[in-house]
């Protein structure tokens, strides 16, 4: 799960990571009120969406008067912001964060992420703040300092010194930076974060460090023990169909092809998409029914797949381990009663209770259902069915 910049900064502040003062607004009036509350002469109006590159897309504006705050808030609230991370359809901006202006002397980058190979968190720092870190990694990888922290000893002074001296900070700033990085490490560990990025991390004219931006992603499996973070979930940032699917234990991602897929297991689901592609067809979605699939979830799966008008055939590919094939077969029967399944459905059921499942489907004799013997056969039939050749 991801959160907005203003929410990440609320979490930072709790741990003593310095952030500029700011208030969130959903209306233009609120935005102006917030600017008045902050005082000063410079404000930043920032679109709150779950994507990077907001500044380049016109979603971040510096205002030097309350009139300008009003003008920018009007412009940004309700706009569809397109950035390199939103996809071409962009994202609707519903909230703006009004923040006090910062005195920027230098821009750095600081992030914490899991190093899968080392199996511990790694802190990354770079002097190239304000640039996309992917670009820095590609062009000048030597400008990224990586320090892995063994969680059994936690963040120590030497970790901080490696980062601070690596960045070439003058000695009066080393201590301040170490304190900043130590606090950020605590944010990461204590909240079960998946990743944190501060880009840019600003060095002010007076030599202080402040998080000008903030991005946080969390380990979904650990949200159960962080109710406060779970409450920060913004459902409007998530795809409606994907969300509906997840409520039924289904994992769904829409694609732009013609063959709907219903599969158990993420690996087999991807393998099924790959096979459809290999046989000359195009997958319309990724759908993993998970290990707890039953008649109701399968029916829901059909409903979600069939909402997509591009779907010309459905390929149900189940290799039952935990999932019992007879349950899936019953789900298909159930689905045909609840949903108008108007396209051919190719069904391949193998593994636990497969003979029982075949029997159930045979006895039901539903039109539109085509039995397949294995993965290759099923994919071939689904491709043919989508072309109207079956």
């Amino acid at each position, binding site marked *: 799960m991801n959160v907005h910049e203003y929410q990440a900064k609320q979490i930072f502040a709790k741990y003593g990571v310095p952030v500029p003062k700011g208030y969130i607004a959903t209306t233009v009036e609120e935005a102006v009120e917030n600017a008045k509350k902050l005082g000063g002469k410079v404000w930043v109006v920032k679109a709150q969406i779950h994507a990077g590159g907001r500044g380049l897309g016109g979603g971040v504006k510096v205002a030097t008067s309350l009139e300008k705050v009003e003008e920018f808030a009007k412009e940004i609230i309700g706009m569809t912001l397109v950035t390199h991370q939103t996809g071409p359809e962009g994202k609707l901006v519903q909230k703006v964060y009004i923040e006090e202006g910062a005195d920027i002397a230098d821009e750095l980058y600081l992030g914490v992420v899991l190093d899968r190979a080392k199996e511990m968190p790694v802190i990354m720092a770079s002097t190239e703040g304000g640039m996309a870190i992917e670009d820095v990694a590609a062009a000048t990888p030597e400008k990224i300092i990586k320090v892995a922290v063994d969680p*059994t000893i936690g963040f120590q002074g030497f970790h901080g010194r490696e980062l601070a001296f690596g960045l070439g900070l003058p000695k009066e700033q080393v201590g301040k930076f170490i304190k900043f990085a130590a606090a950020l490490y605590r944010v990461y560990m204590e909240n079960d974060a998946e990743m944190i990025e501060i880009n840019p991390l600003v060095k002010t004219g007076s030599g202080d460090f402040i998080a000008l931006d903030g*991005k946080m992603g969390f380990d979904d*499996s650990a949200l159960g023990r962080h109710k406060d973070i779970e409450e920060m979930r913004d459902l409007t940032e998530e795809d409606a169909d994907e969300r509906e699917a997840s409520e039924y234990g289904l994992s769904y991602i829409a694609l732009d092809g013609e063959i709907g897929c219903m599969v158990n297991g993420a*690996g087999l689901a991807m393998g099924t*998409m*790959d096979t459809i*592609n290999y046989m000359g067809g195009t997958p319309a979605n990724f759908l993993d029914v998970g290990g707890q699939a039953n008649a109701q979830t399968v029916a829901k799966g059909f409903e979600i797949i069939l909402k997509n008008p591009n779907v010309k055939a459905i390929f149900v590919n189940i290799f039952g381990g935990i999932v019992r094939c007879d349950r899936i077969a019953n789900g298909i029967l159930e689905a045909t009663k609840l949903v108008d399944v108007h396209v051919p459905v190719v069904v391949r059921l193998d593994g636990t209770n497969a003979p029982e499942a075949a029997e159930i489907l045979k006895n039901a004799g539903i039109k539109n259902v085509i039995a397949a013997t294995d993965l290759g056969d099923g*994919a071939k039939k689904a491709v043919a069915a989508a072309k109207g050749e079956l």
Partner: protein
Amino acid sequence: MSILVNKDTKVIVQGFTGKEGTFHAEQCLAYGTKIVGGVTPNKGGQEHLGQPVFNTVKDAVSSTGATVSMIFVPPAFVGDAVMEAADAGIELAVIITEGAPVKDMMFAKMYATKKGMNTIGPNCPGIITAEECKIGIMPGAVFKKGNVGLISKSGTLTYEGANQVCSEGFGITTAVGIGGDPIIGLSYKQLLPLFEADPETEAIVMIGEIGGDLEIQAAAYIKENITKPVVAFIAGQTAPAGKRMGHAGAIISGSAGTAAEKMAALEAAGVAVVQSPADIGKKVAEVLAKK
């Protein structure tokens, strides 16, 4: 022969009396696995599926001499369960549970390593030595005894791959589902040498996925150390690039983790890479015929 587990392996089940633990322990017993007991706190002294239940793994190990634990406890307790197994002297923990917090696994794996305990999973189908010992949730009937070793991140692709190998008239020595979580136990690189050393294994099937760089590491290892033929499939060639907030993870590994990149690395290491999992069986037949 086989790797890691065989017909004599003594297994306990952590989370023995729960719904999932019960269902799958029953299936494992029916397959012939020597399940010698289980652990459910507060239920010590009871009997379940004809086997003794213990309050702690230490009790279970000292009474039964078990060396392997199959773990079904709920996600929030997985870290604790793995560390308890390591502390009790278990040699291999097979973690089936899905949804364990990454941080918990990070600490649990460090402790397991310190105690010399191997782990498989979490979020995996387990390990099976065909017709001898099934420790996990895979449909046992699919795995006929034979001469092919199998390693897979994905559970259902493990079954798919094994099914095809068997339909071609071959069989499986041992199949290991390693799981696809950010932190996992034994991986390709640790399992490949075991199959290389196993006299009965004549070919290896390796099934990977997009994300991470374990397959890239495996490719480098295969090039230098593996003499037996390897057939590989990488799932996710058609998966869309994720709309993530950042790609910091990819920077660490120095690899984007795409299917194309992994397939190219494996091909360069002399591995027979197939584009669809539907071709795994045929490809195995082909490489074995060449031997």
